């Protein structure tokens, strides 16, 4: 417990200043009726009391990223970030998702340098979820509102102050080297407050459902009629995929400025729910129906990803649950398969 520090919220500016001296800082910012991650330059801009509408993946895997630009046949590659990235105020679910994305982009024969150049040296500072929202189900995924996987530093909001705990060497290193942040030692009262906050958050979530056998169940569900039922109502839009912190499919597009020799090659998010995703130039499409596409999405998360990386590609952040226009609730989908299997 001796590792835990306390920081008065009104001194958060010092923490932010220390981060800004070493990092480009991203955090949840409220603007235009939405809470989204954005680059911040002061503590005032941060909104730490609710989860973001969009996930944090875009910080490291932007929706649109330039691979190269060209003019008159000469290509140029944009340089990487000048400073490493720090994220302050990410929720435990999103912090966990970054570890999953890192498995996709940062491991294997090919290292995706667009990802690693941002993520490799990043400092991830999460804040526990005092009030999990409707639709949150991180507890199904062996996570909780105060999980620390993927975090370098974890914060707990106890009202006027934050408790600060390092969860990695990188996090400890930063905290130890930042003398100018006025940390204090938490009192026993602070610690019990934190325990209370955590308990309240955990108990406010709906009951955990054990989905550890979902991979095996889906192995046998390829021909299930449930796929037809789901496809019947699914709109094939990309709400679930684009809000999802672990969905990572993308497209590569060339764009030329009309009337010039200038253009760019970009990588942009894409979704397996779109019919064009797999459609070949010849017109042939291996996944031409909504049924095949929704099966792909569910299988990728709860079966294929488990096969390849040993874990489910879902962190239970609940964004798809809350935002699906037809209430095609992934919790319900998984439960239905579990019940049938």
């Amino acid at each position, binding site marked *: 417990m001796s590792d835990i520090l306390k920081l008065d919220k009104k001194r958060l500016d010092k923490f932010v200043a220390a981060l800004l001296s070493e990092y480009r800082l991203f955090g949840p910012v409220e603007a235009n009726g*939405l809470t989204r991650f954005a680059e911040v330059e002061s503590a005032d801009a941060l909104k730490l009391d609710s989860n973001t509408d969009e996930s944090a993946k875009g910080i490291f895997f932007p929706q*649109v990223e330039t691979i190269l630009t060209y003019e008159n046949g000469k290509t140029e590659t944009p340089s990487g970030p000048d400073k490493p990235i720090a994220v302050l105020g990410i929720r435990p679910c999103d912090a966990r998702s970054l570890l999953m994305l890192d498995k996709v982009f940062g491991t294997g024969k090919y290292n995706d340098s667009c990802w690693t150049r941002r993520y490799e040296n990043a400092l991830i500072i999460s804040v526990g979820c005092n009030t999990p929202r*409707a639709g949150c189900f991180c507890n199904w995924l062996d996570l909780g509102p105060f999980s620390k996987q993927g975090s370098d530093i974890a914060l707990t909001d106890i009202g006027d102050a934050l408790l600060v705990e390092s969860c990695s060497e990188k996090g400890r290193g930063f905290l130890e080297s930042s003398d100018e942040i006025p940390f204090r030692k938490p009192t026993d009262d602070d610690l019990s407050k934190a325990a209370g906050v955590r308990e309240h958050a955990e108990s406010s979530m709906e009951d955990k459902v054990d989905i550890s056998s979902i991979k095996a169940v889906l192995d046998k569900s390829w021909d299930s009629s449930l796929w037809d039922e789901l496809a019947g109502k699914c709109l094939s839009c990309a709400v679930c995929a*684009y809000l999802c912190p672990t969905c990572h499919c993308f*497209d590569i597009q060339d764009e030329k400025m009309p009337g010039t020799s200038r253009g760019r090659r*970009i990588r*942009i998010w894409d979704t397996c729910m779109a019919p*064009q995703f797999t459609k070949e130039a010849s017109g042939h499409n291996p996944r031409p129906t909504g049924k095949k596409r929704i099966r792909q999405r569910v299988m990728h998360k709860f079966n294929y990803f488990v096969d390849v990386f040993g874990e489910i590609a879902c962190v239970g952040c609940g964004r798809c649950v809350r935002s699906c226009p037809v209430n095609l609730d992934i919790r319900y989908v998984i439960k239905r398969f579990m019940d049938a299997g």
Partner: protein
Amino acid sequence: MADVEQVLRETVRKLLQEQKVCRVIGYARGSSALRSTPVFIEDEKDADSLVFDITCGNNLTQYLKKCGKAGDGRVGIVAKGCDGRAVVQYIAEGQVKREGILIIGIPCEGVLDHRKACDKTQGREVSEYRIEGEKVVLKGKDFEVSLDKFDVLSDSCRRCRYPSPPVHDVFITEPKEAASQEPECKEFDEFEKLDASERWAFFENEFSKCIRCYACRNACPMCYCEECFVDQSNPQWFGKSTDLSDTMIFHIVRVLHTAGRCVDCGACERACPLGINLGLLNKKVEKEIQERFGYTSGLDPDETPAMAAFDEEDKQEFIL
């Protein structure tokens, strides 16, 4: 609404029993008290899963094309005013045959904008709700809030003139008369007062939130193109990025393509995960069409849609 639900279930059960329809598109309770989900009922035993209340926001018309297999018999559809108008528009546009559809009209008092309700409850799980006159009371594990219904209604419902479908085959309880004129809509009036550059700035601000998920398009009954222009790759009409110029073109072309067809059901706006105000632009275009061509979409299946008709008297001042 309990009565309406009982009558609805009974009616659907009978329609299926008597084989007047082969399936019915309706709403079932969703995964939370404030959500409903589209459902397709083929077996009379399942009729009891039908619900109807303020959470039934999806425009079900778009499922008609998916659901109606040839030679299968009539398809029933539970239709609020706006769903009914979309069905009428489908008939007018030759997308479905009148005799293939059985319109089950249902009285609508407006539907909930889920995001608004969510904001009012700080995102907490609502386990039950009840309507008390003009109030909606939302109840969760350790809270209860009473809200003005108007504040959580979908924007399109606040300005709705047609609570009941203009055409129906059966009606659950009694149809409500269309309002003699459009309800006052402060938001729209204020929007109209803006000059062109202010309007442009408004939409730039709204569309800057767009992530190109196409939920608006896919939830829209009128966006039924086999292949949307944004998805065409040869030729590719414009970029797929979220640069403002690309997102603006998408939304502008979409609204032009639904001009004179949009029934202002608000499905697009409710589907948007980022709360983009799409309704004002739709409404503005709808008004233009009414003023220019005296046409209101989705009222008369036999009337030629505005964009499919030509009249020498049409205003042409935009032709230089």
